[in-house]
């Protein structure tokens, strides 16, 4: 009895805060940038303003054919040891990974190995497709443009609660699909757009089923040929545990205070496949989007497929293609993708009218809301304001 009581007291008294801090070091940029980029002063001012307003760290990389590359950062890659945020730090791409996943599957489409209008049951192993509601009614195209009607596993209350209670738990892809058990399609497949991470998890699993290894396909057919040496996507089991990866912060209670959740973020992102799971330097992200838009990655017809938009059911305006969003800012169209995670947020877009590519990254989670999280939206708009001036 004494032992039990002592154990209980020790358990109650064990109030040492959980420590999710990851190592972070300074790094060296290997790409030269144009110091006299015309928008440099305005963008630098925006970054410094939002770092001073409470964002842990933020970074912008830009490219235009006439002025070349420019990048800058403000704030910290790690608050604890005051490691400054640098343009060479690896940033979490979060859902920007969907653009890579879509491109990888379209490479197989170009080889005739996948039919976009075939049911996903033609490709998915039965062990996985039977976890899904009405899988035979869903086509590959519907996954790519988010019209499948499949519920988003990441919105499942059981999943969110389990993730918060067990931040070091490693989910498998099958585990994520298990959160759909007993669920129904949210609408008739193909009838409307509704963003769901489940769709791109399945895109990756279908690519696995056809090619054998979705990760290797991205490495061999996208990253290597484009020379994206500062992009990492499941290439090793510990690919996120490198000191160049920024630390991640989470405004849990939306009250202006952030926690370092770097290890939680690493574990979470390491288990995400197709819908997330990528880190890269800001300039590597920009170079990827350039290659895509300049038709150096896919055939023009495939890139056009990625830009065949489905409309937003609320506004009736073009919304999403295949791994690409269609957005507008001050009348200027932009194509690309945003990313929001537990400990990071980003945007990777191309402004065709301005011939500008940009990546914006923050090392604070943007999945939730809060006093600081709201500033990340303001930061994105301020960066776009500068770019479209």
């Amino acid at each position: 009895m004494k032992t039990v009581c002592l154990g209980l007291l020790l358990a109650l008294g064990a109030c040492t805060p959980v420590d999710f801090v990851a190592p972070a070091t300074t790094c060296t940029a290997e790409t030269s940038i144009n110091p006299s980029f015309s928008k440099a002063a305005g963008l630098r001012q925006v970054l410094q303003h939002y770092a001073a307003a409470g964002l842990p760290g933020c970074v912008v990389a830009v490219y235009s054919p006439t002025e070349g590359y420019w990048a800058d950062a403000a704030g910290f890659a790690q608050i604890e040891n005051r490691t400054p945020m640098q343009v060479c730090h690896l940033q979490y791409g979060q859902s920007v990974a969907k653009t890579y996943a879509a491109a990888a599957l379209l490479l197989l489409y170009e080889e005739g190995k996948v039919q976009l209008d075939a049911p996903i049951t033609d490709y998915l192993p039965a062990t996985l497709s039977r976890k899904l509601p009405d899988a035979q009614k869903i086509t590959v195209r519907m996954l790519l443009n988010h019209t499948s009607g499949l519920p988003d596993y990441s919105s499942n209350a059981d999943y969110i609660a389990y993730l918060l209670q067990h931040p070091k738990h490693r989910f498998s892809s099958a585990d994520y699909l298990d959160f759909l058990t007993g669920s129904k399609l949210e609408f008739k497949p193909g009838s409307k757009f509704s963003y769901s991470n489940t769709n791109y998890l399945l895109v990756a699993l279908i690519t696995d089923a056809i090619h054998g290894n979705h990760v290797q396909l991205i490495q061999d057919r996208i990253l290597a040929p484009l020379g994206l040496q500062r992009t990492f996507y499941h290439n090793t089991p510990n690919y996120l545990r490198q000191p160049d990866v920024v630390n991640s912060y989470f405004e849990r209670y939306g009250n202006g205070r952030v926690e370092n959740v770097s290890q939680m973020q690493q574990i979470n992102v390491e288990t995400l496949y197709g819908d997330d799971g990528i880190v890269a330097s800001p300039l590597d992200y920009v170079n990827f989007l350039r290659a895509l838009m300049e038709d150096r990655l896919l055939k023009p017809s495939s890139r056009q497929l990625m830009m065949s938009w489905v409309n937003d059911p609320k506004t009736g305006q073009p919304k999403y293609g295949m791994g690409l969003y269609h957005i507008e800012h001050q009348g200027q169209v932009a194509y690309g993708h945003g990313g929001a995670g537990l400990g990071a947020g980003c945007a990777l877009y191309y402004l065709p009218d301005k011939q500008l590519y940009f990546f914006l990254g923050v090392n604070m989670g943007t999945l939730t809301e809060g006093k600081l999280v709201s500033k990340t939206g303001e930061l994105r708009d301020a960066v776009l304001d500068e770019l479209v001036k």
Partner: protein
Amino acid sequence: MIKPSFLSASFLALPLLVEGQVPPLPSAGALYRNWPVVVGLQFHTLAMPFSDGKSAFSNPGLSVGTEFRYNRRATLLQGLQAGYYHNRYAGNGLYAAPQLVYRPRFGPLYAELRAGAGVLYAMQPGHSYELKDGSWQTNNQGGKLMLMLPVGLSLGYNGRQASPRISPFVSYQVFVLHGYNPAIPVVPNRLLQAGVRAHLFNH
């Protein structure tokens, strides 16, 4: 056809059900005294109801409380419960919650259905940082006060004494927190409790 298993269960329950074979029970109201001390050991999990069973006994804590009755039979009571739990990954919590309690008796046993509203101070699991005067300040486990809405079911044992001094109970409570994050309107939590209600005073 009565199944043998049911028959044997009935024989076990017979002493509890048949009046005359045991001393008659005084009425619940006659037994009850206000302001007992209710203490318990509890385990907290951030989880949806009836899920994550493996974590049921992972995050220990203590609860204390008291109550008073609203009616003579003491089937309707006002309880007040306060408690603390240690939850390394989801954050520790300190709470106080008045609850309305419905407590029917079944022989020496009683059940409870309770619901109420209270407040919970949820601590951040790790160090938190806040930008003040242009520099990041560390705050060792800051937290946030939130609205707590608990409901629960309990089962307890009064025994057959005319004036029970100690009544053990087990309880399953779920509560939602409002205000965790603006993007998450309510967060589900669970408390498993075991404790005793001790009548220390004559009221």
